[in-house]
């Protein structure tokens, strides 16, 4: 006899593929189910994409949404959030969170502008110093989390404030405009490549985002480091007893997040020709949203980089299609909320462990 109680369905133990970890050893029918759900993070993206095509305004008989210029704009618009989200994925996989990324972006933007314009440095030293600052900032936060055992939420919330304060002090509170040229107080022309495109089609920031995303995806698939990351998020105690260098991994992960936030800050400065201490406010929430929509669990231990990339693109498409349809800004907020939940629900089609 089957007991057809509807409410208990979700709670019954089910056939359960493992959480998305690095290994996949397909063999029997599990493999089919698994590879189907491997792409679950793409469900929401695909759905939003199809809807976007359907509702796109048409201009001169062409879909505005699908025009190559528009698609490039979408990827460029999410590239900073996307790069931050890549770093955030590592942090969330170990069960942490990094709220400081938006402020670190602002700090890095100010740093780039100040070093090039005020200190007259070249591009390479500027980029290196700024990336170093971001990495050091992240690593410091990681060390506090790992050594003192304080929750990363609180450490990085404090880090957010601190980075914002430092950026404002450094810049005197004002955005520092970047003028290009060879004179004093001018940045090397080459820096403006960041706001350009390859072949006039693919924006440089978009290219960087995709390159970093794919790189991180490979790292997460095939390195021992990635397995340590998953292990810490899965069961920290077991990881420690298995010889995983928990502290070191933790610090590294926060350092990566800081590094990528700083990179996003450099791109930000290059795109906007300015480094302002208030840049990147609230980006942390967008980045976390991209990660979580991509199917990574905030509890740590399960998730994928492909999901994060998909999540970031989904958010970008959503913003774009709402704007293209001239939805009232306030209505946009409501619709965005609903679509995000719907997208997350779609990712959930995957069966869960009871």
């Amino acid at each position, binding site marked *: 006899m089957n*007991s057809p109680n509807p409410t208990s369905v979700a709670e019954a133990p089910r056939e359960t593929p493992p959480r998305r*970890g690095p290994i996949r*050893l397909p063999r029997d029918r599990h493999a089919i189910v698994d590879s189907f759900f491997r792409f679950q993070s793409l469900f929401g993206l695909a759905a939003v994409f199809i809807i976007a095509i359907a509702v796109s305004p048409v201009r001169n008989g062409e879909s505005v949404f699908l025009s190559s210029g528009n698609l490039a704009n979408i990827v460029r618009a999410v590239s900073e959030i996307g790069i931050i989200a890549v770093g955030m994925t590592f942090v969330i996989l170990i069960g942490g969170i990094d709220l400081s990324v938006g402020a670190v972006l602002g700090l890095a933007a100010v740093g780039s502008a100040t070093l090039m314009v005020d200190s007259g440095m070249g591009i390479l030293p500027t980029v290196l110093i700024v990336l170093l600052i971001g990495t050091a900032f992240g690593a410091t936060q990681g060390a506090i989390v790992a050594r003192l055992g304080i929750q990363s939420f609180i450490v990085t919330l404090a880090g957010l404030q601190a980075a914002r304060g430092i950026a404002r002090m450094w810049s005197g509170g004002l955005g520092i405009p970047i003028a290009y040229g060879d004179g004093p107080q001018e940045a090397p022309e080459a820096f403006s490549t960041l706001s350009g495109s390859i072949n006039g089609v693919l924006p440089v920031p978009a290219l960087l985002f995709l390159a970093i995303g794919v790189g991180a995806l490979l790292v997460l698939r*095939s390195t*021992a480091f990635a397995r340590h990351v998953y*292990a810490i998020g899965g069961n920290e105690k077991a990881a420690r007893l298995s010889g995983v260098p928990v502290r070191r991994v933790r610090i590294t992960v926060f350092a990566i997040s800081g590094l990528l936030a700083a990179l996003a800050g450099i791109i930000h400065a290059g795109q906007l020709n300015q480094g302002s201490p208030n840049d990147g406010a609230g980006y942390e929430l967008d980045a976390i949203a991209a990660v979580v929509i991509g199917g990574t669990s905030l509890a740590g*231990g399960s998730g994928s980089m492909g999901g994060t990339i998909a999540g970031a693109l989904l958010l970008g498409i959503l913003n774009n299609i709402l704007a293209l349809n001239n939805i009232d800004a306030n209505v946009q907020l409501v619709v965005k909320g609903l679509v995000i939940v719907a997208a997350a629900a779609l990712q959930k089609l995957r069966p869960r462990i009871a």
Partner: protein
Amino acid sequence: MTERPLVRMTGIGKRFGGVHACRDIDLTVRAGEVHALLGENGAGKSTLINILSGVITEYDGAIELEGQPVSFAGPSDAQRAGIATIHQELDLVGGLSIAENMFLGREPRTRMGTVDLRRMRRQATDHLRTLGADLEPRRLVGSLRVGEQQLVEIGRALSLNARVLIMDEPTAALADAEVERLFATIAELRRAGVGIVYISHRMAEIEVVADRVTVLRNGGIAGSVDPKTASRDDIIQLMVGRSVDALYGEGRNEPGDVLLDVRGLAVAPRRPTPGRTEPAGVDLTVRSGEIVGLAGLMGAGRTELLETLFGAGGSGRRAGQVTFDGRPYRPHGPRSALARGVAFVPEDRRGAGLMLEHSVADNVVLSALSTLTTLGLVRRQAVKRTVAGQLSALAVKAASPAVATATLSGGNQQKIVFAKQLLTRPRLLLLDEPTRGVDIGAKAEIYRLLHQLADTGMAILLASSELPELLSLCDRVVVLHRGHTVAALPRASATQQAILAAANGDDAKEAR
């Protein structure tokens, strides 16, 4: 026999994807009897009782309770119908007190609608006392050791005053004294007309407690026997499908040089943690090729000693001398212990051993990753081969190496923890209750394996609460009492009485 059974399960079947966990099982439980369920790891015992206790709600077949067909929507439904369950895995809330855990979901209320804490604590104390456990009901469950948690689980089930009591390996984490108390309680319940389903891998217990035995194999019923008449071998034959002889190996090689030498090891914790017994004067040696047992009562500090030797113990000042392979040994953490060739199988497999939601393969290779990587990149093929080899060596029953570890049966999960540590090719293997929940056939495999490992020169230090296991497996048995070594008995003089006497601290003076 004409009496209507309390529970009648007919034609029970359950599939998990490709795995047929139960097929066409009929089971009855009568009032006042203890019906034992036996079977190898993964035979389907837990699945069957999960169906009866309302945890699994989709299955084939029918359940009748006192002749009435029932269908539970969830565990609380089954509880209300008078079915109490002690689940195999300890499912307690670490952040709540003992009393709160025991009455979770059915807290007694005062007239004002608040929780009646006094009544709750009093009743909790009472129930625990019948089990011989004097635990302060306000203590947080998270601070209890595994055996004590097991007692809380049992106490909780008793407090339900159920008509049917299901016990899934209730004694897996208990020492002999507690087991005896539990059996006394079971006898009382039986007199009171409670129907009991009892699952265990300890054959000796079955002989003492069971009225009827049903053996499961591969999800189906392999047969039913009367424990009074059937021999142990018959039952094992039913379970495993062959006879398991030489459960404990004989004829050991001569041990080699001293590998681990511990003298006067003591740890003074910076902050005392309630419930922990840090080493307070431990002397012992382990030679390569030797299997040394650690005996002691619950709370004697065996686990803490092993943790300390693995660099995973509590922080604090250390006194004493430890040498490993002739050199001073003081691991900063598990990592440095592993680097020196020391591996550890913890007692709490779910809390400390496994990433339950990750795949079997991920778990197996975690400790030995460095041997499977080139330039930081994991060699997939090597991982695949290694995992497959390890799983077959330990006869792990899993649908595939890619399934989540949580879907494995309890005993098979234990084997995964084992497999993981063996992969590091240690010189010294520290084992804390390594065969907990492992079926008799697999136990034999593990013992054989341990002997093989010892023969290759590996040193093994093994803590176990099962005295027969220690007696027949070990070359020497070291007994701990309150964090001290009180005896070191060579195989010849190690008897059950001698160990128990030392463990109780009776001959503490003589031994020192």
